[in-house]
């Protein structure tokens, strides 16, 4: 956020040419991995993320089992070559926090009580990063959970809004994130309009926040449709409908 100054909006348009309320191009592929129980590849502009789901399977160590419901594990990880300066392999504080909030974004929709004592494991690998990787990861993970046949109340969809050159806009790219004034990722259960992740970074006036929240929720609704379409496509191809 806020490194130096750069003009992000010229003649009323974003540098990328996108409208203020326009998402980056999205590409979703379901079931891209063979070994995983469910998987999804998700592209959001220049972000490339892949999610795999394993489970429900036995929880190790048993010490961490929950007698009433499945425990969801979520690991967000960046490939060393996914960023400008090579990232040292292994978790850091940022990735640990993202893993935690992402897990909590998905927890509410998973019917965890059906699988006591087990673990449902979600692994997200960021292969290329361009701002918004946590939202791309959650979107991928949500579809991968469905692909794995994990019973869910609904999908979760995620996107960020931000503020650049004084304007509240949808889905910041890396340049907008680095030189912008605020970034606010959310995750939402589209059917119930409930927010399961909300973070904010930077500075927003109250009105901007409220406007941004609506804008992000709209973005989530669009992504939700794309997620559903990708699942339908996968399962209609496989000849067992959706």
């Amino acid at each position, binding site marked *: *956020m806020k490194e130096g100054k750069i003009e992000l909006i010229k003649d009323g348009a974003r540098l990328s040419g996108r409208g203020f309320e326009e998402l980056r191009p999205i590409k979703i592929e379901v079931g891209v991995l063979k070994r995983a129980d469910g998987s999804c590849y998700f592209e959001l502009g220049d972000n490339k993320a892949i999610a795999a789901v394993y489970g429900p399977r036995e929880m190790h160590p048993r010490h961490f089992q929950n007698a009433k419901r499945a425990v969801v594990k979520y690991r967000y990880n960046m490939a060393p070559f996914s960023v400008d300066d090579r990232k040292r392999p292994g978790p850091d504080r940022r990735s640990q926090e993202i893993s935690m909030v992402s897990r909590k974004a998905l927890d509410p929709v998973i019917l965890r009580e059906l699988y006591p004592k087990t673990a449902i494991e979600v692994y997200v690998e960021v292969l290329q990063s361009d701002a918004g990787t946590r939202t791309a990861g959650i979107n991928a993970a949500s579809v991968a959970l469905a692909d794995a046949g994990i019973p869910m109340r609904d999908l979760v969809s995620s996107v960020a809004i931000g503020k650049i050159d004084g304007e509240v806009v949808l889905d910041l790219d890396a340049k907008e994130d680095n030189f912008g004034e605020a970034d606010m990722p959310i995750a939402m259960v589209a059917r119930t309009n409930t927010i399961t992740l909300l973070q904010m970074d930077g500075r927003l006036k109250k009105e901007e926040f409220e406007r941004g929240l609506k804008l992000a929720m709209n973005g989530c609704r669009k992504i939700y449709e794309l997620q559903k379409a990708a699942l339908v496509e996968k399962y209609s191809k496989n000849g067992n409908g959706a």
Partner: protein
Amino acid sequence: MGQEVIEDIRKDYVYDLIENGKRADGRGFLDFRDIVVERDLINKAEGSTRVQIGDTVVLVGVKVEPGTPFPDTPNKGVLMTNAELVPLASPEFESGPPGEDSIELARVVDRGIRGSETIDLEALCIEEGEKVWMVFIDIHTLDNDGNLVDAAALGAITSLLNIDIPYEQYGLTGKDTLHIRDTPVAVTVAEIRGNLLVDPNVAEESAATNKLTVISNVDGSISGLQKSGSTGLTEEMIVKMTEIGIEKAREIREKYLPKI
């Protein structure tokens, strides 16, 4: 097993109270517990503050030392925020490397200060690309009866005020205080069965389905948000929580923080 039962009983007790419009300590839903702020207890730190909110006690220390800037910001000082949930402070805390709760605590406090541009990091450059002042905010929990984040954030901003930069101690010439441009205050609003209440204690925290920490500034703007908890919140609820957060922050700022 036994513990889970006790946990459930405790939650039910909180639910009963809340549904009758009450809290165990008699507070209103929008009342903080008593807050005590004591400054400069630690003479080895450039700034330090003990914040007590009810039975929750946090000690925050700020150290300022010369160091190397990050390659991509060669003319800016460095801010590092760290939190230790030491096992002294709660039967639930364990020894070992920082877990996700302490990482979250540190990062939320850090973002509040960073997002509001509270510290003028550019004023902390000593020699571009070579040497800058590093500001370490260390959050040391002493007693956890809930709502650590509001206590820690208040301790952090209080500790940052009136810091003399220790030029002489490190053989450098110069004289300056840390430039502080805002006073972000964190207020955590818990949602328990549709009711909103601020400053949850530890029993309320475990009963809360959701919490939202709202960090807001002198001008009423928001410089940090963090939702935690295991269910969703509606837009209306979030907006209401944010309004409460901003309003309570204003009250706390007036009472415990100087004008900038």
